[in-house]
């Protein structure tokens, strides 16, 4: 029954980044503000800062991922850290080594930071509970629970285009039930003072208690998108497209795919986000994904700056 927020140190500063939930708005703003100058670094000819020189960062991926791992790797290298990539997958776990044994072994190699992706909710918390106090843990996605750096880069993107969170209507659309991204986005939007967050999806893809996360629930996408400023699309995993959750990708697209017609119901200056990788023709139409309101590629660019910000803040605390 440990209830203390495990990601803050005794001074209330960020010790680990495990989830957005429970973080004060000041820390989120600190991360976004810190990321701002890093955007220009990534546009310079020499894209390196010495902030993490001599530090060793382990990319600890128990679940396959190319994009997220790569963006963390680039972010760490731009801060001059040494990066070790470990794709552990589920196979080496079945060889008998437990998650905590793996972490203990890597700690003995004098790691300074672990970036963890795992298929089970709570894996990053478990690791954070068992590492030495000088080691920082960043959750790069655990099960359905949280993906805080994704949510932060989304917030950075929204702030970049919309400036003020307190005047916005934001819709999160799709498979919220299985989405760690959605959970982190919803917490971040609420903490940053967005007055109206909407969750749109069929009942089979929404958690029963989704209302308690601080969203208004819509099953009709047309109603849900009415007058919103930001549309945050979610990925529908292949294995969930046909079965007892959704009958077929076609039927899903008909009701919940983002088309030009549906987007026209939102504010004319609404922006469209997607965490990638996209399923064109399932959750989003190509004309929207590649259209003028899409900010999907800037999200990727900002993602590196935001991850640099998180790493440099943790290393400084």
């Amino acid at each position, binding site marked *: 029954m*440990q209830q203390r927020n495990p990601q803050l140190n005794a001074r209330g500063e960020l010790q680990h980044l495990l989830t957005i939930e429970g973080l004060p708005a000041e820390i989120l703003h600190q991360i976004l503000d810190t990321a701002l100058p890093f955007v220009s670094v990534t546009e310079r000819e020499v894209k390196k800062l010495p902030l993490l020189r001599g530090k060793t960062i382990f990319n600890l991926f128990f679940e396959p991922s190319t994009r997220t791992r790569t963006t963390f790797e680039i972010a760490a290298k731009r801060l001059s850290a040494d990066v070790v990539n470990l794709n552990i997958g589920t196979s080496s776990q079945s060889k008998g080594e437990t998650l905590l044994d793996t972490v203990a072994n890597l700690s003995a190699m004098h790691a300074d930071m672990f970036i963890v992706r795992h298929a*089970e*909710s*709570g894996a990053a918390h478990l690791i954070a509970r068992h590492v030495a106090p000088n080691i920082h843990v960043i959750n790069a996605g*655990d*099960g359905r629970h949280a993906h805080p750096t994704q949510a932060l880069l989304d917030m950075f993107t929204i702030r970049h285009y919309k400036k003020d969170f307190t005047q916005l209507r934001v819709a999160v659309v799709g498979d919220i039930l299985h989405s760690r991204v959605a959970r982190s986005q919803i917490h971040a939007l609420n903490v940053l003072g967005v007055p109206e967050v909407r969750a749109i999806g069929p009942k089979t893809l929404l958690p029963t208690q989704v209302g308690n996360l601080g969203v208004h629930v819509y099953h009709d996408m047309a109603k849900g998108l009415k007058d919103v400023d930001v549309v945050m699309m979610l990925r529908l995993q292949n294995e969930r497209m046909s079965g007892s959750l959704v009958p077929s990708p076609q039927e899903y697209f008909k009701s919940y795919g983002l088309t030009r017609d549906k987007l026209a119901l939102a504010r004319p200056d609404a922006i469209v986000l997607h965490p990638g990788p996209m399923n064109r023709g399932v959750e989003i139409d190509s004309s929207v994904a590649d259209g003028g309101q899409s900010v999907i590629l800037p999200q990727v660019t900002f993602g590196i700056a935001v991850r640099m910000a998180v790493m440099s803040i943790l290393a400084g605390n």
Partner: protein
Amino acid sequence: MRIHIKGGHLADPANGIDAARDLYIAAGKVVGVGTPPEGFTPNRTLDASACVVAPGLIDLSARLREPGFEYKATLESEMAAAVTGGVTSLVCPPDTDPPLDEPGLVEMLKFRARSLNQAKVFPLGALTRGLAGATLTEMAELKDAGCVGFAQADVAVTDTLVLMRALQYAATFGFSVWLRPEDGSLAKGGVAHDGEVATRLGLSPISPCAETVAVSTLLLLVRETGARLHVCRLSTRDGLEMIRRAKADGVNVTCDVSANHMHLSELDLGYFDSNCHLRPPLRGLRDRDALRHGLLDGTVDAICSDHTPVDDDAKQLPFAESEAGATCLELLLPLSLQWARESKIPLSRAVALLTAQPARILGLDLGHLRVGHAADVCVFDPNQEWRVEPKALKSQGKNTPFLGLEMLGRVRWTLVDGQIVHEG
């Protein structure tokens, strides 16, 4: 051995006694309550002043982990935990490895338990072979080997026709069937109550419907077959309400709740505390409060420990991968006393739910202190404080949601058949 338990407060709900009385024991039996038999000279006098003298506790669900899971716990360690917790009789579910589906296994377990001379062990036989839910076990043979009823532990019978026939067959011979109500399909893959906490933490949910659908099916089948049903470890408000109505309609059904579920809720999961990974899952506050109320109004017939020792390696994993269960034999009494205190009712009400009531469910001559009957006794100091720590627990399982917390109430002496088997 002649023992005089002196100066204690006797709580014997079966006999309606809740008063200061001395207890006199000789040759394994109670020989005097309040007054000694003529010419009684004790070899030993136990000073029970400030203590409650109660019948030995009867736990309707305690896993001893033998055979098959000796790395989690052994009969020796768990029997020691039982008597340390004042438990003198315990019912063990059949989910050992192999499961208790053959008379030889049951006889071996009974023999091993008897040779330890501690708590009395009453095994539940498997209802279906290998708990696979397809073929009935040889219930009559298992009964002769010492099974007190038939159960599926945590494995649901998904084929409802098999379930109905199992109940019919058991009813033929008057055997009782003990089932935890959980619909296998609805609970599949789930690890936490489908509520606010599982939603926030992204844990696969188990809907309350997994319980209510199963309770509904079981009650309908019991009406049809006339089987004697004990519903194990209820967890939801709505499931409990269905039992309440069935009892009012005269259905022959009893039920229990676990000591964990009468105190804890989904909120105790905190940040993925795998010690709170239990089956059934810890439910909402409303459910917990309903279970507590059900104990008060008599809908719930007994409190069990649902003792499930789990080794550390199986708990030090991400929540969903960790093994469900908690050690509880040594916490059963203090947790029950805590419920009585918080409910502002006499402690003897809690004692009844741990002695006379489970004895009635078992249909055995246990759970009371009548002259001429077995002297299974639990003498406890209801006001002694102790802290739940790994080293304070005899059980090999050290994992419990209550780790680090203070408990009120500790057993001073436990007697089984007039022998002192634990001295605190």
